[in-house]
């Protein structure tokens, strides 16, 4: 994978001239899970994104971080087509919303899974029905097979099988997140978007959830894009990190970002919480010394 080498080689010039981390990658934009060029988002007079570029490789785990109000959620909503940007060109799985009619765009959306911050499970449906909802809409599976696949997804995310008959209001916060993840995985998406997946979980639950995402990502070969504030998650599972800063985005591995002299980056990656999360040691479960070398990308089944 040639593109990977390009990213890593960026380290060589770090520290010289002005520090610059590119957020685009070489290669055909259609091959990326997400590819954004020149995104501008503004609300009234407030400009949230100004000429933002971002490429997300297939099969990688990308963490998006940024201070409050830097437009992390807006970026996610824009990628998913829930927010129409003022300017810019967004490709999701090689397709551009502007070029597609409603039905084709829905099919592209069906190839993505989203876990919203509080789960966003349909409260009037049981967990199993929630998981089956996207299947009913986008596939021709019969009821038996759908029930089995829903049960499979429930087990995959580590919920007990009897959770399928429960309503979201009967679940704890952690179980809701797992159920939400199961629904996001319902149609075996090519890319899943997670909005603060570990927010509101206790440290043990958060660690479990991180490991769950990582192991699902490896076995299913899915691309993961997660907005997070959880430094432990960043260290534990993200291949690359995208930082929203000054209305643009800077992407790099943990090592690269830690060398960025920007004051916010210094505060973020060298603050007491970052040290507590073990940043700088770059000790990662996959750790063979090349964070973000993208070897997981090879595992993609398609």
């Amino acid at each position, binding site marked *: 994978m040639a593109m990977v080498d390009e990213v890593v080689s960026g380290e060589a010039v770090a520290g010289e001239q002005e520090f610059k981390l590119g957020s685009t990658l070489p290669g055909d934009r259609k091959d990326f899970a997400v590819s954004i060029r020149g995104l501008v988002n503004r609300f009234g007079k407030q400009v949230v994104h100004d000429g933002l570029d971002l490429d997300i490789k297939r099969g990688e785990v990308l963490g998006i971080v940024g201070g409050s109000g830097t437009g992390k959620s807006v970026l996610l909503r824009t990628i998913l087509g829930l927010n129409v940007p003022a300017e810019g060109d967004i490709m999701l799985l090689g397709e551009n919303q502007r070029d597609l009619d409603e039905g084709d765009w829905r099919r592209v959306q069906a190839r993505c899974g989203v876990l919203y911050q509080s789960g966003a499970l349909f409260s009037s449906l049981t967990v199993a029905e929630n998981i089956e909802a996207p299947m009913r809409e986008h596939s021709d599976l019969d009821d038996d097979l759908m029930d*089995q696949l829903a049960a*499979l997804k429930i087990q995959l995310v580590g919920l007990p099988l009897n959770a399928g008959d429960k309503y979201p*209001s009967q679940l704890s916060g952690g179980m809701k997140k797992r159920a939400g993840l199961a629904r996001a995985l319902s149609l075996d998406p090519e890319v899943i978007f997670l909005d603060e997946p570990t927010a509101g979980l206790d440290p043990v639950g958060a660690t479990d959830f991180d490991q769950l995402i990582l192991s699902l990502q490896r076995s*299913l070969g899915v691309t993961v894009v997660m907005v997070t504030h959880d430094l432990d998650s960043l260290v534990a599972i993200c291949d690359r990190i995208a930082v929203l800063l000054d209305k643009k985005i800077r992407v790099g591995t943990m090592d690269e970002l830690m060398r960025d002299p920007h004051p916010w980056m210094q505060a973020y990656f060298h603050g007491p919480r970052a040290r507590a999360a073990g940043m700088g040691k770059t000790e990662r479960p996959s750790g063979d010394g090349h964070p973000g070398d993208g070897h997981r990308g*090879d595992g993609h089944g398609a």
Partner: protein
Amino acid sequence: MATAESWITSARQGAETVWSLQGEWTVHHAEQISRAISAQVAAGARGGDVVFNLAGITSLDSAGAWLVIRSANALRASGAEVSLRGLDPKMNDLMQRVTEAAPSDKPPVPPARTLLDWIAQIGEAVYEIWDQLLDLLAFFGEFCQVFLRAIVNPRRLRINSIVSHIEQTGLNAMPIVGLISFLVGVVLAYQGADQLARFGAQVFTVNMVGISVLREMGILLTSIVVAGRSGSAFTAQIGTMKVNEEVDAMETMGLTPMEVLVLPRVIALVISLPLLTFFADILGLLGGGLMCVLLVDMSFKQYLTLLNQAITLSQFWVGMIKAPVFALLIALIGCFEGMRVSGSAESVGKLTTRSVVEGIFLVIVFDAFFSILFSLLGV
């Protein structure tokens, strides 16, 4: 349309049967693949060992992996030895993971409902109503206690809050209550005049309008509108505060939610509903008067004179006396249901609906009680 053979083919090799799986085994084709497998099983129920050759699979997701595992399990259950081979190593993790998570063949089916279940359900519902009635009585008791405490120590009455709720439930409701009463007065007079004309007794339209508006229509319509408008608002306001844990916060600060939230609302409604009823009475009579002037040949002055003869003060009080009682019912139900909200925003909606339905129901039930009472008293 792909045929079964494009997913799975079977061939006999010595003692074993080799099933060659090919193509995209993904959720988008899962239904076709599932049917192809069933066809294969039906056609090739020949026993002996089965080998799954997975080399032809070009892409696999968890649904596809599940179908492979499910068919292997089904064959094993019928006594065959099944082995998998030729799987692309990249898909190994996935297959492993799905095998671990594979649900038992059938997810547990909830037992069918029997007649006994239905009866039990009815019993439960009855108990629930009974429990709720007890809860409501307890709520009323607590309210009385807090109310008496507030009477003894009037500083506990939150005047600002009461005035604000009078504005919301009374003043702001005037346009809609007025309009409805006026129109009902118009309708009553119009229908009445039409029927009474057959007896040549058109002039009694005035009696009919006067008595029905003052005794029943004014108060009943106002109560129903207020139950829909303010009873629901009470439930939604208090319920939202429950969901946001504001009520808990209040309690831990040493404030009594009953005193802070419920008391001002109930007092406000008990003050504003009679006032609204009076307003509704007047507009109802005006609406009736308008139709009398237009349909029955009389001047407005004559209408007022006739009205004065037709109704007595007691007719007016029969209607008005009900107002504070209905106000108490509506406000108590609204607050009670609001306090019962728990957990989710969904329960706010559910209990708000319930509060309106119960409020209107109780208003009408009590109206019937009042009718019986008044007829016994000969009023």
